[in-house]
Structures are given as structure tokens and as C-alpha cells.
């Protein structure tokens, strides 16, 4: 269970004149998927950090299952842009890290992490260092960490931005497949319209800095590519993004 609610949330960094993001309001129901889309610097990552409990809003309220979020939750998996793998830990140690931090005995944590790695086809590289893996494999290790901890909320911050086009499509498929199978709530930050429409049942469109909510678009075509519906929706979303961009002086 994990319903994520942002209620008129605004955040301002220390010493900043203007708000980094907000006010933003949306709800991601249990097991649903939201994509956050917007130009660079519009506060997409800030929103994710607020959802992870790493930042606390000055205005508004972030809650999960009705309870206001004040600290990071053990059942939230936060996948960073570089996947958040620690280079001094092996693949297995990285996958088990959430469980170790949660206080599980090492043997039990490693057993569950091994199962998660095997599920993602990474059992052969369990003892490898992250630097020895490709970008796609690192992404799968980060997903294995989420699976091992039985996360009910996956927050992914541009998780595919470091991948080439082919690997990126495979990784999108994997993200979608795991979300369908595991049933966790998912929030994915991206600056690709196509990726947002492939992964998000709803797409939150943000305007340029300071990030403000432009639209919350329902996407019935989640999990599909290049269909008439996705092409049309992509055109609409692009129009929203362009409309939110400041006009150049003539």
C-alpha cells in the first residue's frame, strides 16, 4: 500500500530568492504510475526528493497513505540518475544495502539480494564492482535493490538518461514489466515525452524554473510506443511544454 499525495507543495532552497518548485498538487494511487516531465532545472528532482522524505516542503504537505512524510521510508526505493550504486561495494552488497541499513542480518539480506539479482539476470555478476558493469546492468542492480527491499514506492530520477537509444528501450520495458508484476507505486522523472508516456499512467507537466505545475495529463496509452494515441498525446504534451516556456523577445 502506498498512495502518494502532494497537496499544494512548494519548496525553496536555503538562500534562494524564488521557490525551486511549486505549488504542485497530485495524487498517485496505490500501484499507479506517474511520470514527471519538464525542462532542465524545473524542479523535477526536487519533487522526487520531497517524495523520498529527503527534503521537507515549506508550504503544503507530502503524505503517503495519509501520513505526512517527515523522514525517508524503508519501503521507498529511490533510484538516482547514476543509480546510486556505491563504487566500493560489490553488486551483491549494493543490492543488499537497503536491507542491511534496515537492520536485517547480513546472511538474510544477502540471500534476498541474491534472489533479486537472479530475477534480473545478474547472478553471474554478483561479486563484480559497479565500474565493471554497463549502464543497463547498473540500472538493473538499482532495481534489484528496490526488489530486495520489497519497496512499495519506486522513485526514479531520470533512470535511463545515461543509456544509449537501444539500451534505453530495453530498460523502459524492464521498468514497465517490473511495475506491472510487483504492483508498487511508481514515480519516474524524465525529460523525454515518449518515455513519460510509455511509463506513466499520468504525466505531470512542469513549466520552466521556478517549476510550476502546467498540467496533469491522463495517459490511457501507457506501455505502448508509436501508436496513434501515443503520437497524438505526445503532440499535446509538447504543446503544453512549449506553451509553458517563456517567449523570446522579438
Amino acid at each position, binding site marked *: 500500500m502506498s498512495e502518494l499525495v502532494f497537496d499544494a507543495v512548494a519548496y525553496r532552497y536555503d538562500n534562494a530568492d524564488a521557490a525551486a518548485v511549486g505549488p504542485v498538487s497530485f495524487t498517485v494511487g496505490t500501484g499507479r504510475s506517474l511520470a514527471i516531465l519538464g525542462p532542465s532545472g524545473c524542479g523535477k528532482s526536487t519533487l522526487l*526528493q520531497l517524495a*523520498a*522524505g*529527503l527534503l521537507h516542503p515549506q508550504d503544503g504537505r507530502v503524505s503517503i497513505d495519509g501520513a505526512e512524510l517527515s*523522514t*525517508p*521510508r*524503508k519501503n*521507498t*526505493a*529511490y533510484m*538516482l*540518475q*547514476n543509480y*546510486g*550504486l*556505491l*563504487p*566500493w*561495494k560489490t553488486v551483491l552488497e549494493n543490492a543488499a*544495502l*537497503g536491507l*542491511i*541499513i*534496515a537492520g536485517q542480518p547480513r546472511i538474510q539480506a544477502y540471500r534476498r539480494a541474491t534472489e533479486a539479482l537472479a530475477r534480473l539476470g545478474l547472478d553471474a555478476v554478483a561479486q563484480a*564492482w*559497479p*565500474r565493471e558493469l554497463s549502464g543497463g546492468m547498473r540500472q538493473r542492480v538499482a532495481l534489484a535493490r528496490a526488489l530486495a*527491499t520489497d519497496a512499495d514506492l519506486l*522513485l526514479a530520477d531520470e533512470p535511463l538518461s545515461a543509456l544509449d537509444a537501444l539500451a534505453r528501450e530495453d530498460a523502459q520495458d524492464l521498468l514497465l514489466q517490473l511495475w506491472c508484476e510487483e504492483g508498487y507505486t511508481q514515480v519516474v522523472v524524465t525529460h523525454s515525452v515518449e518515455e513519460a508516456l510509455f511509463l506513466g499512467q499520468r504525466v505531470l507537466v512542469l513549466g520552466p524554473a521556478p517549476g510550476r505545475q502546467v498540467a496533469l495529463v491522463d495517459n490511457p496509452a501507457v506501455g505502448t510506443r508509436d501508436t496513434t494515441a501515443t503520437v497524438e498525446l505526445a503532440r499535446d504534451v509538447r504543446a503544453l511544454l512549449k506553451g509553458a516556456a517563456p517567449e523570446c523577445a522579438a
Partner: protein
Amino acid sequence: MKRLAGYALAVVALVALWWLVASLLQTPALPSPLTAFNAFFAELPALVPAAGVSLVRIVAAMLGGMLLALPPGLAIGRSKRLDTIAAPFLYLLYPIPKVVFLPVLLVLLGLGNAPKIVLIGVVVFFQTLVTARDAARNIDAQYLMSVRSLGASRMQTARHVVVPATLPEVFTALRINVGTAIAILFLAESIAGTSGLGYYIVQAWGMIDYHAMFAGIIAMALLGVIIYEALALAERALIRWR
């Protein structure tokens, strides 16, 4: 093997240079490499215990200085508030050449091991403190966020991120410090000592026994190489991910 071959090549080049200078100068103050190495092997029964004493002093000082400096260095690097308090003290104390405190330490601690260990320890302490602080300050925010998002406590963050992330810089600083530490050891043992390689070298110099003096110099150089290599070995064992 590559490393050993590199060492062998460097030794051959340095000995050749030494031989050339000795042949040109033709002075008893600079014996030929062959004479010096002969003296080194002949003096081994006296050199080994002296080297043992020096080794104990330098290892104790480096270990003590490092272990005492790491926790505060890492804490200062990760806390702006602590850094604000500690920075003025560091700016004042770090540039002072610690060796000037040798007379004070001799008065306070006597002529035994303690003043030498404390003096070298203080030098290693400050260099490790500053290195650890800077390394902790520059940790990639993504690593910290990665464990904080998992609900890691301060201690868990230190264990899983801060310590391993800063270890490479700390080891580099320690290896660089070996030369300084041995120089201070020599100074301390030669000024106020009755044992150790520094004392041995200065005694030989005083008796105009240049062969024994060079045997001591070779032993001190070997001590530096051994400590440097031991640190490199520990670094490779502890920092396997690189």
C-alpha cells in the same frame, strides 16, 4: 612483477649516479656504492636493532596520528557548523612547523620514545585531519543521497559512505607523509636520542666513520621504502574497487 622491475631499474639508475658522483668527487665523505653496501652488510648486527627501534616509533606515530585524526577530520568535513568552529584553529595550527616543538616535548616527555612518537604523530595528525576534512567535504552528493533515501542513520552513513569514500585520499596523504615522518624521526633521534637509525647515523658521522654513516643512510632509506610499500599494500587490500 612490473612494480619490482621498476624498482630494480630505479635502484640501478640511482646507484650508477651515486657511483659517478663518488668517482668525480673522490672524497671519503661520499664512498662508492660498493663500499657503502659492503659496510651496510657488515654493520647489519648493529643496524637491525636500531632500525627496529625506528620502525616501532614511526609505525606507532603514524597509526596513532591517523586514527586520532580520522574521526574529527571526517566529522568536520561533513558538518558546516563544526567546520566553522574548527577552521580558524586549523588555519592557525596547520602551517606551524611542528618540529619546532621538539625541545618542548623533550622537556615534557624526556629522551625516550614518547617525544619522537608524539612529534611525528602530531605531524601525521594534522595532515590526515586536513585531508580527511577536504575528502569528506567533497563526497559525491549522490552517494550520500543514495543511503539517506534508504533511511540510513548518521553512523550508517559514515560507515557505508563517508569512510570508504575518503579512504583513497587518506592513504595518498599517508604515503606522501612517509618522507616527512622519516625526516622528523631522523631529526628527533639525532638531536635527542640514544637509539634508532638517526642516532646511529649521527654517531657514525661524529666518529668520522663515513662507511658506517652510509650504512645507516641506506638502512633509513630502506625503512622509508618498506613503510611506503606496506601502505601501498594496505591500500590495495582495503580499496579493492579501484
